């Protein structure tokens, strides 16, 4: 009888324990609210998607919305990130002055917060503007300083290394450039940052071409293409095909080069990449002339003229 009572008591105890445990797993009330902050993050994600598809204006609008939300809830890290992203949008649209302004505001806030890793990434983007201007020495100096600040921020490290590679390439130090790009590619591969990895591979391929290593360059260009496909980055795909066309053209593989250039052109036309399309068309005209394909040459010339006309009209 005692045993039965003990058993019943144990069962009741277990039931009470389960009930209490279930209550303890329910969400705690009174915790901080991140609704608007998360909303801002969501909007920024959408904007990044638009940026990846080359829709810079629309991306900029969304980033502005995200910035308003970040400011409203006083989310400083968000403000820095959004301003940097807005700077990238301006830079992509060749509005470098506006880009510099956004970077500067982000830099000030990051410095105020004492966030070295954020400062590092901002510095890297500022250096990009200097690279665009051709001020490679100043850019390299800034990047080397930023690399020290990056700390454990591996994404920022990869970005800085990539930009250092660009500076080295500008200084015709292709071996050094390839080294930087390789390091950056390794980090981004590890971080599974496909689009960034594709950019590293692309530039590495370009450096290898300069070093006369066409076969290896082709491999890296194909890796870049694969990564861009995975990231569905149209601009990157068009650039990768263009690079492959150049590599095959240099290797006298006219058919392959023609194929890659045509692929690149198709993507450019769909993705509205007018500048690159003009370059690809110029290559196609030249290639068709070499092959004696007058009809195709005339067609590409016509397209090129039309494109130039459109650009002039714009």
């Amino acid at each position, binding site marked *: 009888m005692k045993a039965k009572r003990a058993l019943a008591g144990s069962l009741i105890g277990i039931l009470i324990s389960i009930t209490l445990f279930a209550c303890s797993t329910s969400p705690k009330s009174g915790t901080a609210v991140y609704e608007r902050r998360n909303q801002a993050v969501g909007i920024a994600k959408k904007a990044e998607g638009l940026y990846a598809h080359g829709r810079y204006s629309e991306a900029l609008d969304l980033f502005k919305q995200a910035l308003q939300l970040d400011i409203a809830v006083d989310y400083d890290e968000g403000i820095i990130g959004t301003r940097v992203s807005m700077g990238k949008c301006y830079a992509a649209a060749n509005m470098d002055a506006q880009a510099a302004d956004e970077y500067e505001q982000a830099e000030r806030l990051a410095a105020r917060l004492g966030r070295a890793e954020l400062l590092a990434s901002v510095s890297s983007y500022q250096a990009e503007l200097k690279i665009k201007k051709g001020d490679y020495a100043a850019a390299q100096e800034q990047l080397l300083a930023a690399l020290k600040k990056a700390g454990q921020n591996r994404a920022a490290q990869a970005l800085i290394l990539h930009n250092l590679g660009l500076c080295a390439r500008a200084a015709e130090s292709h071996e050094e450039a390839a080294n930087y790009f390789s390091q950056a590619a390794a980090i981004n591969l590890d971080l599974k940052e496909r689009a960034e990895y594709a950019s590293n591979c692309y530039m590495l391929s*370009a450096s290898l071409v300069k070093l006369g290593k066409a076969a290896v360059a082709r491999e890296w260009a194909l890796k870049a293409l694969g990564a861009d496909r995975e990231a569905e980055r149209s601009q990157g795909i068009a650039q990768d095909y263009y690079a492959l066309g150049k590599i095959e053209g240099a290797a006298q593989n006219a058919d392959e080069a023609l194929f890659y250039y045509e692929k690149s052109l198709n993507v450019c036309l769909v993705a509205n990449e007018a500048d690159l399309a003009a370059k690809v068309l110029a290559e196609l005209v030249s290639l068709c002339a070499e092959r004696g394909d007058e009809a195709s040459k005339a067609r590409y010339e016509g397209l090129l003229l039309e494109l130039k006309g459109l650009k002039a009209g714009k």
Partner: protein
Amino acid sequence: MKFRIKYAEQITGAFLLLAILAVCAVLAFIGINHRWFSKNYYYKTEFESASNISPGTSIYFKGFQVGSIARTRLNKHNAVDVDFYIFDTYYDRVTENSLIQLNVNPIGLGSQLVLVQGKGIKQLPEHSFIPRIDSEEGKRRVGMDLVDVPLKDDTIAQIIGGINPLIRNFSDMATGIGSAVKGTGTGSLADALRSARGAFGSLEKVSASMNDKVPGILDDLSVTMNSVKDISLKLEGISSDVKQFSAALSEPTGLAQRLVDPKGSLKTLLDDQNALYDRVTSLLDEVNSTLVNVNSISSRLNGEMPTLSSILSEGKTTLEKAQDVLEGLKNNPILKEGIPQKADQSQLFDSMRDEEF
């Protein structure tokens, strides 16, 4: 620890018995309602045709159902033998000399079989033959006043029955009018016609006396006509004066023209064959109709404002509730990972590419 209920089998058995009893009770009630346990007393009758007397047709007495037809069959004389029964509760109403009457609605609204009670005191034994009211035997019994023939309670039949006395009344009235016109009748109408005849006689006498006086009246009338002629001549002179005054007004230098410049705006505006006036009138009509519409819309809006306000208020409340529900769902640990976690904002990483390759 094993849980069990004491007397489980007994309780189950009790419930089972209760259920069986309930079913029996229900069946009993149904049987009582359908007279399964009552005795019926059967009788026979005969009809010329089986139309309107199918088995199951109810038999009424004073508006109550007292029985029903059990069976019909065609006999060897081409007549229809009908077996019917009377409920035990009305068996005592089936007395000697009773008859059966089939009332068919004259406008096709069905039929009714009626028990016509005989005036005898003796109760009619079961399986007796009860004749129809329209059979020779039935007519004989009615003629001898051996049955208590009921008044028809069919409204339509009553109306149709009431038509005959009405027609008779009309006929009497027409006869009376005819007699009065002939002068052989009596009553108010005949007296009035006789007075009228006297009045016509007096009128003839008046006409004769008028014939003598008419020449004098005609002479007086001639004098009066001469006076009217003089007045007419005077009126003609006045009319001429008025005409001259009107001509003066219509002249270019006349009074009206001096008041109104013939080339002025007023003249132009007014002398437009009512175009301006018509336009103004139509505009005023349009404005009036517009104002009516605006007034109507305004009053409708005023009427709908509380509704709109309440709809908006309800919508807002519903949205708030829906938001609460969604937040609750979002926070449900079973559906998701509880309260939304803090998301960190990343920045855009996009390494530059040298397009020159």
